[in-house]
């Protein structure tokens, strides 16, 4: 009776360990693939995305990496808005101002137009919220 119980117990322990390991490695997988997953955008960001794709993507690109179809005509090139490190240097208010007043007013290129009379303040806030979600595809 006891001899029968020992292998049973051993096999239960071993299989539990295997299951635990497999479960852990799966958990690791989901962790590492998390940044690849598409972000779920909230209301402000989704509105910003619509506006971005309409007004901004021709030059800044749909992904925001500065590779819109019109980008190659421009000198200087449109900024890569998906570069998170570089974007950390700008506060929300600074982003708001450059969208609203345009590049020339903020000491940058005049090829970036001022949008403050085309879209309203709320829409610019949406855009800023969306810019914060951009990240480089690579």
């Amino acid at each position: 009776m006891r001899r029968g119980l020992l292998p049973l117990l051993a096999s239960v322990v071993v299989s539990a360990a295997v299951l635990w390991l497999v479960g852990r490695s799966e958990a690791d997988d989901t962790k590492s693939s998390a940044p690849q997953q598409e972000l779920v955008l909230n209301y402000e960001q989704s509105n910003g995305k619509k506006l971005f794709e309409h007004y901004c993507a021709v030059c800044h690109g749909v992904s925001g990496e500065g590779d819109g179809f019109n980008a190659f005509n421009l000198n200087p090139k449109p900024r890569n808005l998906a570069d998170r490190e570089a974007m950390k240097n700008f506060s929300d208010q600074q982003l708001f101002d450059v969208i609203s007043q345009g590049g020339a007013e903020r000491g940058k290129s005049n090829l970036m137009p001022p949008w403050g009379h085309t879209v309203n303040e709320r829409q610019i806030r949406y855009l800023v919220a969306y810019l914060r979600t951009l990240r480089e595809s690579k």
Partner: protein
Amino acid sequence: MRRLALLFCISSFMLLAVYAVAPLRDYFQEWKRYQKSYNRVADEEFRQNIPVRPTPIGIRQIWNRDLDTVDRCVTCHLGVDNRFLRDAPHPFRAHPVTPHKIGETGCTVCHRGQGAATTVRGAHGRLRWWEDPMLPSQYLQSSCGQCHGGAAVPEAWVLNAGRERIEKSGCVGCHKIPGFSRRGPIGPDLDGIGSKVRPLWLFRWLKNPKDYLERTSMPDFQLADEEARLLTAFLLSQKAPVPEATVSSDRAVIEAGQLLYRQARCISCHAQGGRGGTFGPDLGKVGGKVRPGWLESWLRDPKALFPQTRMPQFSLPEKDIRAVAAYIESEFADPAMDDPQEQELVRSLPPLSRESLAAGQNLYRRLGCGGCHRLKQMDGQIEFGPDLTGIGSKDADRLDFGNLRLQRDLWSWLFAKVKTPRAFGKNLKMPNFGFSDEQSREIVVALLSLSDKKIPSRYLASEEKPSPLHPQGNFGKLLKKYECLSCHTIRGEGGKLAPDLSIIGSQARPQWIASYFRLPYSLRPILTERMPLLGMSDQEISTAAGYFQTVLLEDSVPQELFPQGRPDAPEAARGKELYFNKYGCQACHQVQTAGGYVGPPLDGVGGRLFSGYMFAYLKNPQKFKAAVLEPNYHLNDSDARALTAYLVSLPAAAQEKK
């Protein structure tokens, strides 16, 4: 006596206990816990110089008298209108920026749920006897549609997409849906279809339309072979007076047809195997569908065969019609259309008899084909689907979930109805439209907006519609013949594919319009849909141009800005300076092949547009084209005038001069 005293003693203690429970219960209220926890957060934030004030403990509510709602949600959601709490944990997080003031409108008007409840479950959960549970966030935009009817609602893209899909899918063919009305035919007329299509095509089409045309809005009725045969035989008996014809297989004729096909830009509306316009059906396999005799008659005069078609009548001579038909039949063959199979199908069709025709008619009626198609002999015999008025307020407990095991929610039910209508049980009529999950969600959002909640009229967003203009006489005939309003809009009516023509007389010069009708070209190289070459006669061109110059005008926009039409050189030079160095127009526009191409090239724009319009447009582009990319630079008059002067002075590009 002592027993009585004991009893009195015990009952006194019990009463004391009862008195003690009430304040204790009150002290441990769920919402008080949240408020205390909020005050801890507030203290912490306040220390970091973020203006978040602690709240006095007590029930808070938003009372909207007009809508008759009392929402106590803000008792726990204490940070809703504090933008400094955007990243705070729930339930203290700030509400996203919306066009509405939360403190005035309240919460349940958009989110639904039980506003008066002060427990988490009571407010958010699905409760028995509470008929209006909280909306899941993916359906939230349906609430915008309660007040915002009609056209596109700003910032409610899911609702807009759903409404557009309802419009496009022809739901109004069978259902009554408030806010949607039947404008024109949904599917083509079926009179004469027996002379139009080949039997095998018709049979396969009835069995599964998406097999032949992926983008079709014709749903799948999941017919059994026997039913499809019956319907095929019935429809094939509908003949039209179309002469039979055989197309030429002469290489030279086919090549001539190909040239004509390209010149007329058929591809702007008809794709070929998925590439090209989407306004008309994809013609990639049309050779296996239509009979040559019908095709020639159609090209000659589409409206003779289908009076309400959106296809323009191209003024082609007989020889060219033959050539185009020969090209279409040879180029767009369908390898799946196989003659022996067709013969076998024809043999298996029920013989034409009074019984089989009556059975076909019955089937036609039962399936509701008449909802979308017209067949003269079946006029007035339409069986409608349910009226969808107020569907968005329906109580989930009154819905029939049939065989489906779903969460008992109105939205889960609607989603299943839209996505898999036949899954509820057998013998249901609604066909399968093949909507994806996302498309189905969009439609459900639009349906949920059809609530029967009483909304005070001052909350209803009315849209300003321009008074419609229905041109009569010769120009009216031209509009119909060439179906201009399929793509262009005049005063709010027509398609959105091409520019609005409402004030074209104040915008474009008549000489340019005339030359454009003779040889249309695309102003923007990035567009795929292009103006077709219609082959208009000189008489027709002068009728159209004359109408533009007398009726389609905007009086506030003068035609010419400069005396004698010529600006002086210094002003133009200042405009050039502004163009390149101040406003950076070259980012989007080309002048002499240099510059971007988001907007149209500007060489010779003075020959195309009136200078007065250019000036007015530069001052406020969105006034003339609502969604145009051109930014409003808030130009002063002097700068706008100088820029116009520069643009007027630009010579036409080399290839345009020819």
